[in-house]
């Protein structure tokens, strides 16, 4: 089926089986590799994207649901020349190690800050439930608070 949506601000149309997870459409058809495949079971969060600014795990999101939606991936969140506050904070705190899970965490954090500009530690714990094997959680928490600061001062 033909599915049309806005991807990182640009209209996109793909012709694909509507049940295919959007993750693979993004990665393999649209060639944006920043959205990661980690488990395919919505358990790790590496594939987190935004659908209308809400965090969604794209490995468990059928492509057909993207019709007419606003989709944002890590590539659309910010760039080196114009980083999103969360990306800025991630660089300031030098969070990534292997880096594979980081786009998912960054997308989840950006979604969190959209709705909750000043999350408490408890709210961070409740909402950021992705998995990082390098266990960069300690710096991530600092980066999330820092991102809130950057965003609120903007």
């Amino acid at each position, binding site marked *: 089926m033909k599915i049309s949506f806005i991807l990182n601000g640009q209209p996109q149309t793909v012709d694909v089986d509507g049940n295919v997870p959007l993750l693979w459409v993004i990665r393999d058809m649209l060639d*944006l590799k920043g959205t990661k*495949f980690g488990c395919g079971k919505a358990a790790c969060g590496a594939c987190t994207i935004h659908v209308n600014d809400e965090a969604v795990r794209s490995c468990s999101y059928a492509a057909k649901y993207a019709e007419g939606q606003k989709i944002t991936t890590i590539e659309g969140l910010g760039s*080196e020349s114009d*980083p999103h506050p969360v990306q800025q904070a991630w660089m300031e705190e030098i969070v*990534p190690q292997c*880096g594979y899970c980081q786009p998912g965490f960054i997308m989840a954090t950006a979604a969190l800050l959209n709705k909750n500009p000043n999350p408490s530690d408890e709210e961070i714990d409740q909402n950021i439930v992705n998995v990082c094997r390098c266990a960069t959680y300690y710096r*991530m928490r600092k980066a999330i608070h820092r991102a809130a600061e950057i965003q609120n001062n903007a």
Partner: protein
Amino acid sequence: MSKKISRRKFLVRGSLGTLGVLAVGTYLFRNPLRRTLIETIDATLPSYSGTGTEATLWFELTKENKVIFHSPKVEMGQGSFTSFAQMIAEELDVSLDQIVIQAAATETGIVDGLSTGGSLSIATFWKPLRELAATMREMLKMLAAQKLGVAANSLSTKDGIISGGGKTLTYAAVAEGVTEWPELDEVPEPRSSGFKHIGKPVQRVDLGPKVFGEPIFGMDAEIPGMLHAAIIRPSAIGAKLKSVDTETASKMPGVVQVVKMEEWVGIVAQSYPQALAAKMKMKVEWDIPKVWTNEDLQEILQVGKGDRLASQKEGDALDPASEDVMTMEFRSPIGAHAQLEPNAAVADYKDGKVTVILSTQVIGITQKMVADAMDLELENVNIVPTYLGGGFGRRLNTSHAIQACELSKAVGKPVKYVFTRKEEFQNDQFRPPTHHIMHGRLGEDGYLDSLEHHYASGDVSFNSVLLPNFLNNALGTDVGAIRGANIMYHKIPNYHTVQWHLTLPFATSWWRSLGLLANTFAVESFVDEMALKAKKDPVDFRLKRLDDSPNAKRIRKVIETAVEKSGYVDEVVDGRAMGLAASIDTGTPAAHVAEVSIKDGNIIVHKVTCAVDCGLAVNPDQVRAQCEGAIIMGMSGALYEKMELKDGALTPTIYGPYKMALMRHAPKEIDIHLVQGVDIPMPVGEPPMGPIGAAIGNAVRRLTGKRLTELPINLEKLEA
């Protein structure tokens, strides 16, 4: 010692023990994975038009005066690329942003013959890489001297520019048109002090790509025209393919070919979801010779069974039956690597040659494995490593490269084979489960008089591709399982360590820090218990039995530092207790104090104070990052993780049921203290993992009055 450098091939004989070519050539690393990077480089840095066919390549100079370093080691998060850049910048006199680090492919550069692992990348490259960079600097100066008509020793170098006699030349300009490099009589001595880059907490070189989602991982690799594959492998241990009905699957949309091999079945399709969908429809029967259970494992895994390999034998052995001997047993479970990037490989088999792009810690070994399996000459197999989405030892066996090659050969097109998460969990090479029996006796002074550690473990280095068994036998022990097992308190009059090597029905291997986490848990929990029995201060109880050897002094220092910085007290204050533990691993001592409380039956780790002596920290910030990561990953292993046998298969097969530390479990405070006891870099990726399980257990002992003896530790086990 002076090292001769041959002119003809521009060879540099460094202490790496390998031959390197200083080449100025085309940027020839053109695998599609790197296309973004290459496009950037092509757009901004039109390269020299050399032949670029050198078989071995260390550095390249581009026209834009950038230096490309082809690293024999891969970057898997440990930050070594950043430290390499610092080391190169220091000696080559270029700025950090003039350096591009690239994992070498077998075709383009020198790859590590063994592996990236053992926390050794920076420690082993410390000298040779700086020598190599210094050599290149001196060669450039000699060339510049010729071009400028001044004496080489009157020239100075900075930011990739050579100046002297009022003239300047960029390195690129110096190298332009050079076909033969000058000869150096000696490898220049790298600087030993006054560092500009070394020892500074510079940003990671891969920070941008990792924060902005660039396609840098094996999983992101593509070769034009490639197809996608899923593979059916057995779930049950030892299962053999009996029959497979490919009828339905072959007719599924997008399926190009179902490839039936002796031990597995591959489905090649236009897209990965199509391959997965077809896999779901495949009907497979397995022959399962034995349905393994947890009980079977418990039966096998016991001290006293298997091969006995003593590694420490000092003084008299204890008689465990004696009344004054205290004995405790400890256990640790099977651990999964659970790295976030599932294994994947893109292979292009064409005309008797094959290229494989993948995340691997063993580039040379994978090349050999593929060559053997595909019956190809080594030079016809090009292994292209990428950034790794986590290593932790999982990618010391990347034999799935063979399957990707087989599939590519079968369909005559490039094929990308991606593990499912279930495959990843069930085909892991696990951290082996362990069983420990500790014996101890107090002397008349109330300090340890005897300490014995008897432990049983499955393979780590035994049966590994990295180390032939004869070497293990020669070393007298499984050198992986032993990590952290030996007793470091050498002033104890009698101490013994004995390994019982066992064969398990599933593959076990390297897992970040190998035996260290479990061994230290057993030894340091027991030492703590003995201190309680002796009614001694746990700090003094340990320090009293450290001798005056250089390493023992370093251990003493980290213990004292952790104790001092944490304000360690051996009592419960406001519902919180502190637990102390220490270890030394690959020459790096670490001591942790964990501050712990119990809430709603859960162990909460509030703060970890860590003192570690990893010598000279090339990048102190990344050393800290390694400590933080090792502490939380170690906590995860110590408090939550466990694989089990169910219906003959290893389980669970997904995050969640395989419980791991999440954001909410991470300590809110981690206080790292770097104690520099030696002036060279020592390993740091793994050593700080050692003490964490015991430190937490020792705190819980004070909160509950009970000793947890089985990883993962949780309070349910106290009630049981």
